[in-house]
């Protein structure tokens, strides 16, 4: 589908779905901005990792998935969860440590999971979820099920042994998994330019004999196009693909980051490539949205987060009786 003269969308996606995705990107942004605000005010404890500025890679990589398809996520995973169908109220309740949260208040920001809708969980260990995704794909292969698994991880994770072991396994067994590396340019403070001696992380795919694609991680259309091809490959038994989504996290690594390792100018350059604004412009130019409708959607998404906060605040806390439940099945 030709959205504009410069923007072509390969998969067949309804206009309604595109509008939903636009709203979803705002939901992701407002969720993380609200969490940022609460942490700054000391209203929630622990730590958190925000993906403001990375909305297109989460929404784009999950846009073509069915409910049976799976994802594994990372410490910076709120966006992935929302993109895979999690609702903001139960996520916010989890961050508030309430029993109505996705993990009954036992997991917090880094462990949100909803297996029933294919979210196999965020992960606090860098690269820890990559072998899990390969295992999920192995199940699909062995049980002859048609689902695919999208495995999210960051640029830093590609320097972990688990990444290399897992990608190799998926390659030799031709498993239906899509590795989505969100290269947001930094680990905690280490620039990808210092920590990786290849221009594109996607090149690492060559070492395992699988396709490696560079995607514009701030362009949801490009993300959908690249994952479309990878999903086709996976479903037809041709094995995994590595997609590198080039993007940028607007916020610090976690709540206590003075961002000394990068410049304010660099941040401004990336903010000018705002993935939400960019998608809105495409949808308006394509005649799918008007500016007025877009503004209405933005407000709806903002209200959804306010409702989520209200739900979380009014939800019960766990009690000590809950401490030792769920350790064993």
């Amino acid at each position, binding site marked *: 589908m030709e959205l504009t003269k410069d923007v072509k969308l390969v998969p067949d996606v309804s206009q309604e779905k595109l509008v939903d995705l636009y709203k979803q990107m705002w939901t992701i942004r407002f969720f993380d901005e609200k969490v940022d605000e609460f942490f700054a005010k000391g209203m929630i404890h622990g730590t958190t990792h925000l993906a403001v500025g990375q909305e297109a890679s989460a929404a784009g990589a999950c846009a073509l998935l069915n409910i049976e398809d*799976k994802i*594994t996520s990372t410490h910076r995973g709120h966006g992935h969860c929302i993109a895979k169908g999690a609702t903001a109220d139960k996520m916010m309740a989890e961050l508030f440590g309430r029993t109505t*949260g*996705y*993990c*009954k*208040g*036992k*997991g917090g920001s880094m*462990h949100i*999971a*909803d*297996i*029933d809708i294919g979210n*196999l*969980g965020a*992960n*606090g*260990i860098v690269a*820890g979820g*990559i*072998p*899990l*995704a*390969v*295992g*999920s*794909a*192995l*199940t*699909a292969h*062995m*049980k002859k099920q048609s689902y695919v698994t999208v495995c999210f991880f960051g640029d830093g994770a590609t320097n972990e*042994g*688990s990444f290399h*072991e*897992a990608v*190799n*396994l998926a390659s*030799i067994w031709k498993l239906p998994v899509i590795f989505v590396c969100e290269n947001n340019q930094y680990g905690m403070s280490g620039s990808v330019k210092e920590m990786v001696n290849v221009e594109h992380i996607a090149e690492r795919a060559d070492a395992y004999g699988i396709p490696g694609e560079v995607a514009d991680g701030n362009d949801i259309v490009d993300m959908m196009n690249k994952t479309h091809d990878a999903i086709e490959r996976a479903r037809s038994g041709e094995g995994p693909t590595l997609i590198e989504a080039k993007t940028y996290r607007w916020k610090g690594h976690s709540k206590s980051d003075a961002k000394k390792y990068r410049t304010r100018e660099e941040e401004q350059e990336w903010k000018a490539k705002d993935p939400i604004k960019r998608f809105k412009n495409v949808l308006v130019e394509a005649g799918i949205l008007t500016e007025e409708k877009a503004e209405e959607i933005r407000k709806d998404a903002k209200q959804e987060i306010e409702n989520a906060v209200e739900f979380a605040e009014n939800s019960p806390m766990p009690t000590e009786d809950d401490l030792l*439940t*769920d*350790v*064993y*099945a």
Partner: protein
Amino acid sequence: MREITYMEAVREAMSQEMRKNEDVFILGEDIGVYGGAFGVTRGMIEEFGPERVRNTPISESGIAGASVGSALTGMRPIVELQFSDFITIAMDQMANQAAKIRYMYGGKGKVPMVLRTPSGSGTGAAAQHSQSLEAWVTHVPGLKVVQPSTGYDAKGLLKAAIDDDNPVIFYEHKTLYKTKSDVPEEPYSIPLGKADVKREGTDVTIVATAVMVQRALDAAAELENEGISAEVIDPRTLVPLDEETIVNSVAKTGRAVVVHEAVKRGGYGSEIASMIAESDAFDFLDAPIKRLGGAPSPVPYNPELEKAHVPQVPVIIQAAKETLIKA
């Protein structure tokens, strides 16, 4: 009854489950035509094929993690590590992922997998292929830990481990693989968390694990010649631990010796001894609890040094006698 080896009992338990349940499969390094580092899976690829007896690259983290992921999505994998020392490389996946997923997710999801691996010294394989690191995994809530000492126990406990909906670390002992015992052909299950009184006695309780069980029995036989009646208990599973059987025995005998091959310092014997000291059996103790374990060094290569590293029968006899002298 039919007599088979410990190794054959392990293989039979896996094969019987795999015939019954398509979700059960095994993966590991060189487990195909080679039959695994110790030959445990020999013949299995011929029966079940390469999909279900899945030869892997040398990637302990990758294969442990793939097992966790496949268990989470409906399979019941058995992963074989060639030597238990290599759990160091798989540890993130076992300790941070497998053990915690269900709890972190608030009770959603389960990880029904077994990680089988041979531990222990006695083969001259030296420091990186001879360790007994079971205490490490007993420390992590969410994991179960099994350590059979006979072929009979190995078969029944492995079936229970495969049937369990939690991640189970199943320690085989490489010097027990060729030992024979009476093992029924039909499938049977030994519940996890049920100790076995391997020999009844009245004067001293010896709690022994894995290869130390036979040494404790040999010690008990010699003690009997000297008029000392030793009870030998094999916990069989460290997590969950059958505290009741141990406590009842110590309450009866008033004396306890705990012996394992693993390095004594921080070994699971410390846990067993502490558990006894905290229990009602404390009031019945007539002597301090004795702990025996491996020396505080890496496992040496030289056969005499290797032997000296771990408790032998005379040391167990000596320890049992000491508890009686102090009475």
